[in-house]
């Protein structure tokens, strides 16, 4: 068991936590989302927000905010058909991939890690990413859960470190980077129940991934 402290919290208007925090504070949503996304309750107690689930200072609310965004950003949000756009089915994909969702301190190395059938989220995920960024992390990790590892090294121009492992070879590889970027792109282009400023955050994040996370640039500018 590790001990950690809530770090300085960025302005919740600018991270989207004010906007989405009000929405997740709905018992019907919490009752559904908790088992649907397989939150392992034992790992969300002891300060992580189980007993204060509307408190957007804490990891549980910050994770539920990302889950709300995943579920309700399509205009026709009840339509989760696999044949529809990623904006529609991403919530379902994450739901059906995550086996056991845990909140932990972490040692600062990772913000999230997929291992042995469960997804661990660490402080960096809750406090250094905005709400769309957290949704992207859930998509990215879920893709790993689906058995697709990274298959390439970062290209010479990459901000992630030229020659380091962890890149996807191409967009067509349909790896974790593509899943995360594609979701952010759809959210930017057609996401609703959000604000232009939050959609813009998603656009820049998706573009950074497109520019830097593939051994062969996918060729897109958003």
């Amino acid at each position, binding site marked *: 068991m590790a001990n950690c402290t809530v770090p300085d919290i960025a302005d919740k208007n600018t991270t989207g936590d004010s906007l989405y925090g009000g929405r997740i504070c709905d018992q019907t949503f*919490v009752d559904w989302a*908790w088992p649907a996304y397989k939150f392992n309750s034992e790992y969300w107690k002891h300060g992580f927000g189980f007993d204060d689930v509307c408190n957007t200072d804490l990891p549980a609310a910050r994770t539920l905010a990302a889950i709300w965004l995943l579920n309700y950003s399509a205009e026709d949000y009840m339509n989760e058909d696999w044949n529809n756009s990623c904006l529609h089915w991403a919530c379902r994909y994450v739901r059906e991939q995550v086996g056991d969702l845990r909140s932990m301190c972490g040692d600062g190395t990772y913000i999230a890690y997929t291992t042995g059938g469960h997804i661990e989220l660490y402080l960096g995920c809750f406090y250094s990413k905005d709400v769309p960024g957290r949704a992207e992390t859930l998509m990215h990790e879920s893709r790993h859960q689906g058995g697709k590892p990274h298959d390439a090294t970062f290209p010479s121009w990459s901000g992630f470190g030229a020659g380091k492992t962890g890149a996807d070879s191409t967009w067509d590889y349909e790896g974790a980077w593509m899943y995360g970027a594609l979701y952010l792109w759809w959210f930017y282009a057609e996401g609703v129940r959000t604000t232009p400023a939050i959609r813009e955050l998603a656009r820049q994040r998706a573009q950074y991934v497109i520019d830097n996370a593939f051994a062969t640039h996918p060729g897109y500018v958003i």
Partner: protein
Amino acid sequence: MDRPQVGDQLQKRESPPRLAGALTHAARLQDALSGLFAGGEDAQFRYDQAVDNLNRDPEHMMVAIAAAYGHCPVTDYPQRHALVAAASHITDEGALPFLSSVALSEIPPEAAKDPHSFSTVAEETIIRMSAVDSIARHASRGLQLAIDLLLRCVESPAFSIRRAAVTGLMASPEAQRLRPRLETLIPKEQHFIFDLKKVSVRDAIQVKDPTRHLAEGYEPFREQKPRIRGSEPKGDRPKAK
């Protein structure tokens, strides 16, 4: 006997106030930031009002934005990005000195232990990409100062900043004239920058069949998600009120 604790322990602490101080336009800036990120039924009204406020007295607002940016902790990426976003809504060319100081500032070395998971270079670059895109909007109107600033951004060591600057220049009225010069500024192996296309997400390659990529033996969750509304708690779930 108490059950042993499973999982880690997280302690709370108080966060310092933001945009503190006696800046002339700090309160108006804070209002504008709230408006830019506001939700709810009057979101569009508040957004439009925020944009109007930012443009009402651009010179003083830029002073407030630059001061707030300077006071921001380096690691408060969301706030820094929001301040650049606020500056990008200011149509007056007086926003350019601030935007260029952000875009051209050196990116600090990677501080994250595992950049694949979270990268400080990524966060820093994203802030600068927004600044470059904003400069590009001024350049698209043919503003020479903006075009000159983008040319300086082309020489940035960060690929995404270079790419954003080239995209902006190629969308400016000077595109044809500048192309040969840009080709000399971009390393040969990165000339694919000139082939990158602004596309709609609908025209991008999609996931062919997401069901191919589900973990073996996954169990679909059968309960349909609730429609957007409030209701009463169930016994064994965390309480929302």
